[in-house]
């Protein structure tokens, strides 16, 4: 190293007026670059679950006469009501995966998270970025479901889309899912993430009013009450209201209210969780 010259870059050139928003955007740019590198895997990850779901429940079952939800017209009804459930489950599942899984590496023993935690942003800003990043991927996952549910089922699917509701509800659902992903990722030790799926993701998805409207749980009152703690119930009920007519759904006002409450609550918990992990 004899003729090495390392200049200290000139400050005026490098740091100009900055804002947290711009830092968040650049961090999102980084996530997008990572996603592009693994685009094929991302698409497979996003498509597989809804594809299999729809294929088994709305194509295979009706064909082999194992109709879920009854025979004849009921089958068509089931295919229709399942659309909302599959969109909802894709949103929440992708957001949790997109946010919680990378944290295993970032919180690992090398503390790779510091690479991003040292960006000129408060820790809450980094939390917001992670939530947004998960939400964007979740929205993509939700949108991908539509062509699948329209073309795969053996029985016709009748959608009546309330656009305003759909356009507001999908991003809100995605953000709630992102906060859930960050809450899980920051509260559970990185080496136990596999456990997350057993004790959190599975109950959320199986008890999330995916296969049936929430109202139809009336014969099991204790279950009907207990699933109200599950954000996916509100997401699916809201989507059912936004995508179909004639299928019972929860009062839409409660749906929005509950989702906003979940976003604030889980957002607060996850920001605290991230701060605990990042700042010793």
């Amino acid at each position, binding site marked *: 190293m004899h003729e090495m010259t390392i200049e200290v870059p000139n400050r005026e050139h490098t740091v*100009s007026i900055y804002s947290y928003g711009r830092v968040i955007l650049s961090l999102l740019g980084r996530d997008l670059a990572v996603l592009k590198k693994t685009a094929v895997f991302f698409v497979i990850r996003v498509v597989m679950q809804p594809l299999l779901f729809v294929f088994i429940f709305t194509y295979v079952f009706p064909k082999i006469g194992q109709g879920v939800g009854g025979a004849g017209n009921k089958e068509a009804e089931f295919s229709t009501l399942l659309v909302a459930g599959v969109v909802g489950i894709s949103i929440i599942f992708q957001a949790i995966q997109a946010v919680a899984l990378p944290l295993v590496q970032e919180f690992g023993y090398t503390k790779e998270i*510091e690479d991003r935690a040292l960006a000129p*942003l408060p820790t809450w800003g980094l939390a917001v970025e992670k939530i947004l990043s998960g939400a964007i991927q979740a929205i993509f996952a939700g949108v991908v479901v539509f062509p699948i549910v329209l073309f795969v089922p053996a029985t016709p699917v009748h959608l009546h889309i309330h656009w305003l509701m759909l356009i507001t509800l999908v991003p809100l659902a995605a953000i709630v899912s992102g906060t859930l992903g960050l809450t899980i990722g920051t509260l559970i030790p990185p080496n136990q993430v596999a456990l997350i799926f057993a004790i959190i993701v599975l109950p959320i998805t199986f008890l999330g009013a995916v296969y049936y409207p929430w109202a139809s749980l009336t014969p099991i009152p204790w279950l009907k009450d207990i699933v109200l703690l599950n954000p996916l119930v509100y997401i699916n009920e809201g989507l059912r209201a936004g995508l179909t007519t004639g299928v019972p759904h929860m009062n839409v006002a409660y749906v929005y209210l509950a989702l906003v409450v979940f976003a604030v609550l889980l957002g607060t918990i996850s920001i605290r969780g991230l701060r605990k992990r990042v700042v010793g």
Partner: protein
Amino acid sequence: MNASISSDNVAVRTVKLRKIYGTNVAVDDLDMELKKGEILGLLGPNGAGKTTTGGMITTRVLPTSGHAYVGGVDVVAHPAEAKLEIGVVPQSNTLDRSLNVIQNLYFHGRYFGIAKKQARSMASELLERFKLSDSATLPVAALSGGMAQRLMVARAIMHSPTVLVLDEPTSGLDPQSRLALWDILRELNRNGQSVLLTTHYMEEADELCDRIAIMDHGKLLAQGTSVELKRDLGGTSSLLMKVGGDPTFLVEKLTAELGADSMTKIISSDGGVKIVGHNVSQLISVAVSSAETLGLRIYDLSLVEPSLETVFINLTGKELRD
């Protein structure tokens, strides 16, 4: 306390900085100052509180009490602004493993508000300067320890921080990579970069640092240049000369030669003489010629000078090495 302090000449200042983990006081009311343009070495054994101190200065550890300012910015009150002022090279490899080598620099620049085009060109230039151009598109996992370290230094200085903070930068590096890193840090410092580094290697502190702050049990025990520390706290040096025959006359002769200088002791020692005092190296020729005059044959001559090791022993009563 004001959010900022006047900081014309000070890169880092800590005021009664303290961190307690449970019942363990990791850093104990630390008052420290790093002047702009200097390399300050925080020297101490493992567990002395060096890493915790570095962590607090760089917003990664929240102080229990006290203050730390970087470039005049209070790191606790304004962490986001403080992050603009600091470049960090942590002990472990915190490179973004989802990105390749050049992307690590490009996105770091983007986080710090550098425009796309400029971030791209700066990233290439930095790879060139740090001899990493050939690895630009490799995944960071493919880098050797020394290369990863250089990339982390490049990342840390990309946004022109007021201070570059390195935590035990050469532990785990092979000797060649260590020397290369020293060269890089000297070069950066020549161009005005202030550097704070923690180390438990005395030679690293001795070779590289303008000033050394010695820490143990969370407390700052002493600070100064290597020369000052050795002079003031290193204790005496000693010259041991072994001769054939009876050293009694030699002791008498040397005592007579040095006469008035009562600070230097001359002792008969195991087949020779031991001269203990400050700057005894200057007495080598006197000792040798005295022995020759007396017809004594010299078998061995050794000089033990004060070192940072003896400074540390004098300060703490124990050795620095684990």
